[in-house]
């Protein structure tokens, strides 16, 4: 109670900044959406994407503007989207704790789980999962592979699938310059402690990602052991290892990361991308979406970079849209609008617009009726006529894990370790991927303490 009283000054401060513009005019609906920076198409394209002979994609407005128009046309209701952005999951969480109210936000997997455990998210409605409704683009077009991953994941017995609608997903890997670094070297997390690459590689200044990489390096022998991989319970055991936050393990990872810290060029927050392009750095721990962006940018400057997913394992991550309880506040019109927003951006053509703009991979596959996403992949990556090509099978994404031969891209061989591979990892990569869960408060404290220890100056 005392605490609530103390929050008042904090509330005054935040409402001074954000208090205006919240009153709702009767009749007009306002939807407050918060998303990552640079994470949705801004329109104003210079040229159209030709998906096939009779299909073209072009964006003039921002996707948010297009949603407002579409919503009014479809439901006869004027809507106004208040769109804001944040830089990290923690920023979003702190903003909301300080009193910012949103209806729809798009945090990463573990933050979704944290919000579920704090009972702050509204489950998606049953109608939202009804495939017979024309406008339910999300459920009709969601990749069956991704849907399976979501269904396996739960927090306090609540399946993530019922609470969060997927947006983008990807892996954690290493972008590297093949002129200086061999694919073999780039296929192990231990490269970050390799003296050969002294002060020429970077890792992320992000506790969870770098902890994951350190944990993989710590368990490298087990993780790459063929017997371990052949274990019928391989996936479960892998997930267990990659979510280990026991005191002892954290200490061991601390030792590994302390060595990395001395060996790497830096622990970068956002400079890694441009440093790869300018050649200051030869390899960089990176999320797949940023990797695509980096490879694209470098290519414009005539530098050809590759992406690798280490043999040990990779972090399969995703961001998902969730409806905040305090924002929606039992307003059924608002909930309907929030779900409509998710559906609109999940329409395959809009999913492609987003992918093209931000370089990340949408969870939308388009199902059997709509080939827009697959057409887009072919548009980007399939080999020109007469060019050498190899088949690249990504059927798992469109037809579910285990599927083969139905969705195959004939791509130039280099694409097997460049953008195509980065955006749609191969089946082998998928098999060795692990999801990193939300850690409890004690584990979080252990890991943050470890991180502070690594980063602080050592007196003795």
């Amino acid at each position, binding site marked *: 109670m*005392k*605490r609530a009283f*103390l929050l008042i*000054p*904090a509330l*005054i*401060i935040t409402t*001074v900044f954000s208090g205006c513009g919240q009153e709702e005019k009767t009749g007009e609906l306002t939807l407050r959406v918060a998303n990552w920076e640079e994470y949705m198409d801004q329109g104003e394209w210079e040229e159209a994407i030709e998906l096939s002979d009779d299909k073209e994609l072009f964006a003039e407005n921002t996707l948010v503007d297009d949603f407002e128009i579409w919503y009014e046309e479809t439901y006869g209701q004027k809507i106004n989207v208040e769109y804001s952005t944040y830089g*990290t999951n*923690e*920023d979003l*969480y*702190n903003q909301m704790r300080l009193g910012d109210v949103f209806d729809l936000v798009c945090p990463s997997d573990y933050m979704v789980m944290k919000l579920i455990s704090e009972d702050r998210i509204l489950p998606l409605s049953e109608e939202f999962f009804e495939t017979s409704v024309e406008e339910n683009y999300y459920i009709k077009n969601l990749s069956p592979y991704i849907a399976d991953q979501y269904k396996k994941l739960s927090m306090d017995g609540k399946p993530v699938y019922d609470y969060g609608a997927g947006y983008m997903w990807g892996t954690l890997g290493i972008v590297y310059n093949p002129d200086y670094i061999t694919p073999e070297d780039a296929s192990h997390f231990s490269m970050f402690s390799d003296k050969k690459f002294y*002060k*020429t590689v970077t890792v992320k*200044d992000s*506790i969870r990602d770098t902890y994951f990489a350190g944990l993989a390096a710590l368990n490298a022998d087990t993780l790459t052991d063929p017997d371990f991989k052949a274990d019928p319970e391989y996936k479960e055991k892998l997930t267990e290892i990659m979510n280990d936050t026991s005191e002892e393990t954290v200490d061991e990872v601390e030792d590994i990361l302390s060595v990395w*810290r001395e060996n*790497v*060029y*830096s*622990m*970068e*927050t956002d*400079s890694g991308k441009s440093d790869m392009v300018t050649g*200051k750095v030869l390899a960089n721990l990176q999320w797949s979406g940023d990797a695509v962006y980096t490879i694209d940018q470098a290519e414009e400057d005539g530098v050809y970079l590759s992406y690798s997913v280490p043999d040990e394992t990779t972090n399969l991550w995703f961001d998902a849209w969730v409806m905040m309880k305090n924002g929606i506040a039992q307003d059924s019109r608002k909930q309907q609008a929030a779900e409509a927003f998710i559906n609109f951006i999940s329409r395959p053509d809009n999913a492609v617009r987003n992918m093209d703009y931000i370089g990340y991979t949408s969870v939308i596959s388009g199902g059997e009726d709509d080939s827009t996403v697959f057409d887009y992949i072919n548009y980007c990556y399939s080999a020109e006529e007469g060019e050498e090509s190899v088949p690249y099978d990504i059927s798992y994404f469109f037809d579910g894990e285990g599927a083969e031969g139905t969705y195959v891209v004939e791509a130039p061989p280099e694409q097997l370790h460049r953008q195509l591979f980065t955006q749609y990892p191969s089946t082998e990569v998928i098999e060795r991927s692990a999801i990193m869960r939300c850690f409890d408060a004690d584990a*979080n*404290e252990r890991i*943050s303490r470890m*991180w*502070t*220890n690594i*980063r*602080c*100056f*050592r*007196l*003795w």
Partner: protein
Amino acid sequence: MELSLKRKYLGIPYLIFLFIFVLLPLFVIFYYALTDGTGHFTLSNFGHFFTNSRAIGTLIYSMVIALITTAICLLLAYPTSYVLSRSGIKGGAAWLIIIVMPMWINFTLRLTALKEILSFIEGNLAFHPFLNTIIGMVYDFLPFMVLPIYNSIEKMDTALLEAAEDLGAGKREVFFKVMLPLSMPGIVSGITMVFLPAMTNYVVLDMLYNSTYIMGSLIGSYFSAFNWNDGAMVSAVLLVLIGLLTWLTGRVSDDADREGARL
């Protein structure tokens, strides 16, 4: 009489500003620093800090960076200000503008440029993180040292210097016994404007690849780990420390003033 009353009202907007943006946040900082996660009073947050060798290491590292930065800024700024205000070179004010001009350009942009220049000179920046940090800090804070010192030398009564010379003081004595004490207020405000921000400015470290935390980054790391109590505690420690330093330098400056008055 009426006029002065009305003048008082002019201060009200600032008073409101002071209350909302200075006093309230201070109150919140101390509240979080002195409570645990459940809102109960505790001093254990401070215990965490002073028993953690890494946190103390960070404090000392920050102070070393800030001290070196301040010393170099002072060594560069004093002669520059002296020459600009006293030696009667043409267009002293124009030179001053050139020195201050970097302040007109966005800070991160300047650092990005500096990063490229240093890369060009050093090859691999990551080999000299400490040196780069000092260069970045000095580059960033130098104008804040030049301006107050320049002002205090500029305003100085030349008659006092001439009198000292007339009474037989050598050049060296004039400088150390008259000029330096008289310019002390400028030096002190320069030091406060450089030393304190240099202890927390982690952007320079981030951009010039120094992966070691200073106080600013340590505070940030607590907040991104949702540990508001420890984050607020470190801020409070820093606040008290800075308060202490300001008070100390203030006294030094007062003493210098008094000495100056005795002359």
